[in-house]
């Protein structure tokens, strides 16, 4: 079961594919409820969680699609003793959500270190950084961590502006562009939502040209499937999984593309693996939330890690998964009448995607 916001469709397709790929041998009859939310806000997520926990026999939930919704619903699932696996929630406080709260990704500290390192390596000394973030559980935590990482770096944050969750406010677009142009930054660090960036990018390309843009995990090619325009070309972002890293991942990407007609990202891989580990728990005899929780806690401890396509899957005591993050880049063919938007590759770095090893792992 997947609950999501803008990227919910990709999550759902990952789960669908996992269920389709699953060997029915040893599995009990499955009753899957798939819910697609309209947005990422916590209100609808809470209502969905209350609905789900009223279903008898519910053992696990895969979701929600972001930190805010995952955090808001975590206590509902913990109280109902239903396992929650958040595929991409990175808010640090989620580690304290409870025994039934798991996630497929490490918390924001890892991402913050990755982004700070990229900035350190790509921006010259005294460089100007424009920071935009969404003022929710995702953006404000990641911003604080990145700023903490950059505090000792010879960089100047010339713009530090938030935007609100939800609909795009025209004032914010104008204001952000004005602030951005006025500050003349060397690099843009985007820790906000994709729709806002999507609204800003034409103005950015017009005013700042091919300025380097680095985004958090919220910027995903799958999230932009509906309006993937030229101005996105060259935008770099944090990706949870490098889909070119292994044959299994490449095969998954191909099957996903074939099955659903859209490209797969890291979140789709993680939702696929999350569904896979839940199905394995059921295959191993778990029949309720507590037994599924027990199975997940034993992975990597008294059981071998689950062999997901993203790699061996095990959970730390606080429910977090250890994972290497990579930096991906968006490549879009140039459109007629528009200049190439992609910025030059950072010095010393090969073009295309790059990855950084989490120092903490």
């Amino acid at each position, binding site marked *: 079961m997947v609950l999501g916001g803008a990227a919910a469709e990709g999550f759902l397709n990952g789960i669908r594919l996992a269920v389709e790929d699953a060997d029915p041998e040893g599995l009990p009859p499955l009753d899957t409820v798939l819910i697609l939310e309209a947005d990422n806000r916590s209100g609808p997520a809470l209502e969905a969680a209350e609905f789900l926990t009223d279903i008898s026999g519910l053992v696990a939930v895969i979701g929600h699609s972001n930190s805010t919704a995952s955090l808001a619903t975590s206590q509902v699932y913990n109280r109902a003793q239903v396992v929650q696996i958040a595929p991409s929630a990175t808010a640090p406080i989620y580690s304290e959500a*409870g025994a039934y709260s798991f996630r497929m990704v490490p918390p924001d500290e890892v991402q913050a270190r990755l982004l700070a390192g990229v900035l350190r390596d790509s921006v010259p000394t005294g460089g100007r950084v424009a920071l935009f973030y969404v003022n929710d559980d995702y953006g404000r935590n990641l911003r604080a961590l990145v700023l903490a990482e950059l505090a000792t770096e010879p960089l100047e944050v010339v713009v530090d502006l938030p935007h609100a969750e939800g609909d795009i406010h025209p004032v914010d677009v104008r*204001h952000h562009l*004005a602030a951005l142009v006025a500050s003349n930054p060397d690099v843009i660090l985007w820790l906000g939502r994709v729709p806002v960036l999507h609204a800003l990018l034409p103005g950015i390309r017009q005013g700042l040209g091919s300025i380097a843009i680095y985004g958090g995990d919220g910027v995903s090619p799958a999230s932009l499937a509906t309006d993937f325009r030229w101005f996105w070309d060259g935008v770099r972002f944090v990706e949870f999984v490098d889909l070119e890293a292994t044959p299994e991942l490449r095969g998954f990407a191909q099957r996903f593309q074939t099955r659903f007609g859209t490209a797969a990202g890291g979140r789709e891989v993680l939702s696929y693996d999350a569904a896979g580990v839940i199905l394995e728990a059921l295959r191993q005899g778990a029949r309720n939330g507590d037994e599924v929780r027990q199975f997940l806690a034993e992975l990597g401890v008294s059981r071998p890690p689950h062999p997901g396509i993203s790699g061996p899957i095990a959970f730390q005591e606080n429910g977090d998964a250890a994972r290497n993050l990579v930096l991906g880049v968006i490549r879009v063919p140039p459109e007629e009448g528009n200049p190439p938007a992609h910025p030059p590759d950072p010095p010393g770095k090969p073009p295309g995607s790059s990855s950084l090893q989490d120092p903490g792992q």
Partner: protein
Amino acid sequence: MRTPFTPGSPRSLRSRVIYPGLVTAAVLIIGMGVVGVLTLQLRQQLIAATDSFVDEQRVADRIVRAVMRQLAVSSALPSSGSDLARQEFQDAGEILYEQVRRYLFRDLSAEERLQLEEIREEQQRLEVAAARASDLFSRGLVEEAEASRDAMIGHAFDFLGAMEAFLRLREAELEALQVRQTTTITILFGGVALLGLLLVFGPLYIGSLLNHRVARPIQQLAAASGRLEAGELSVRVPPGEDLEFRILSDGFNRMAEGLEKMTRDLEARNDELAHALQELRTTQDELIQAEKLGAMGRMAAGLAHELNNPLATVLGYSQLLAERLDREKEDSWGRELRRDFLGPIVQEAERAQHLVRNFLYFARKPDMKLGSIHLKEAFDVVTALRKYSFQQIGLELEVVIDPGLHVRAEPQMLQSVLLNLVTNAMDAMAPAGKGSLRVTAERADGWIRVTFQDSGPGLSDPDRVFEPFYTTKPPGQGTGLGLALTHRFMTLFGGHVTAENVPTGGGLFTLVFPEGLPPSAEVRDGEAGGFVAPVAQALQPGSPDATRTVLVVEDEAPLRRLQERALKGLNVHVLLADSAAEARRLLAAHQVDAIVCDVKMPGESGLSFFAWLRETNPDLAEHLVFVTGDAGHPDLQELMEKNPHQVLWKPFQMDEYRSRVLTVLGGIT
């Protein structure tokens, strides 16, 4: 034995007391446990609620302080636009965000959780608006900055509204918690009160139950046991209401019934033993009496045997002398000699004869043959014997006997009994010279009751009249054996005799005989009732002739000569032998028609001689008469029962002697 439980049996005390007690105890324990658990839960709830309240209050205080701080800074933030103010604002915002997110992990309702998210979102909007306004002010875009500030103020009010809504929800939740805790406390107090009631009324109920079901039955049993111990064997306890006391009461009642029955049996047995003891004492008295009489009789028998021969000699010669005087001296001298000299000799000899004969009765063994005797005929003999004496004295003798009555008795003894009582009455009334004796007989339930009531002076001591040698007669007039023999004979008959005085002054003797069978059912001897009537043997002298020979076998010479002289009057030839051997020699040498033989002789006895004779000359043996004073010899008793005429007791009357000899000679043709 345990009474088996049946569907109709009462419930056991165990099930009635112990099981409810256990249930009550279990209820108490469970209730106390529940109360304890509730108390612990309430305590934990209170602690948790207090901790939660304190923590929540702390978080709320931080949130409020952060909100106030952020709002305060935000009012100046747009216009100042300083980095310090922005940092202050952001720090307050971080605190606010952190506390709101901590609040997320608290136990909240879905509505509260939604409201909390609303707070968070409004706070984020406020922060976004504040940041925008500050940035615009800092870049001199006053008009846009003021618009953003207005938006910020709007978000601030929305934020405060969300806060107020959340606080109202928390307040409602706290009130609900208060209600729940109040309810829990009420339930707890109710449980404690219920337990208190159980603790108070449970023992009272159990005590009442024990008093009614246990103490009272035990008291009843104790009281009944006491009454039973005191001898009230009919006491019973009511059946117990519970199984155990039902078993106990049934057992007690069975025990009481058993004791009562055993006591009745013991009393009956005791009565039987008392009766048997009385009979034993009576038998013992009789045995003592019999032994006493037997010893005396045995002594008397020996004495009598020695006296019989001289008495027979004296009496016989006196009678011969009297006969001779009658024949030869019919003058006055002869009459005087007979009346004044021979009369007293004969009279005293006869008295001695009577005395010796009574003695011999005591010597007889009680193995006599009882038979049915016609009572009227027996009385006729007695009446004939004593009628003249009664008339001489001036007494009346009235005998009223139904001719149909028969008694079971021995003829000789019966005669003695009747004669004793008639004579005793006559002697008692004789001194007065007047009086009457009335004898009656009646049948009563298989017994014949004969009464002798006289008008005489009565008995001086009725309890002693049957003692041997007890007599109130002057010396020389009574032996004191008559009534003792009467008592003994009646006992031998299977009956009894009593003596008493009647209110009119006379004595009353009552004989009770077993009733005899009528004549048709009783085999009788040739003589009436076996009763020997000596006077019935008519003397018929002179009928035999000298051709008949009578052999007299007697060791004592005077008696041989006496018998020789007596037999001369019968005109028979007499042979005399002093021993059995001499008798055999004479039998071998002479034709003998009859033999008169003594029994006790030196050397061979008369009985041995008789046995020899029955083998060698049975016909002659039937013509033998024993003349003996040995009345106790069993062979003589047997012979006397078969042929009474073959035995004649010493001393004898001369007429009787001759009559008996004639009898045995009469059968010879």
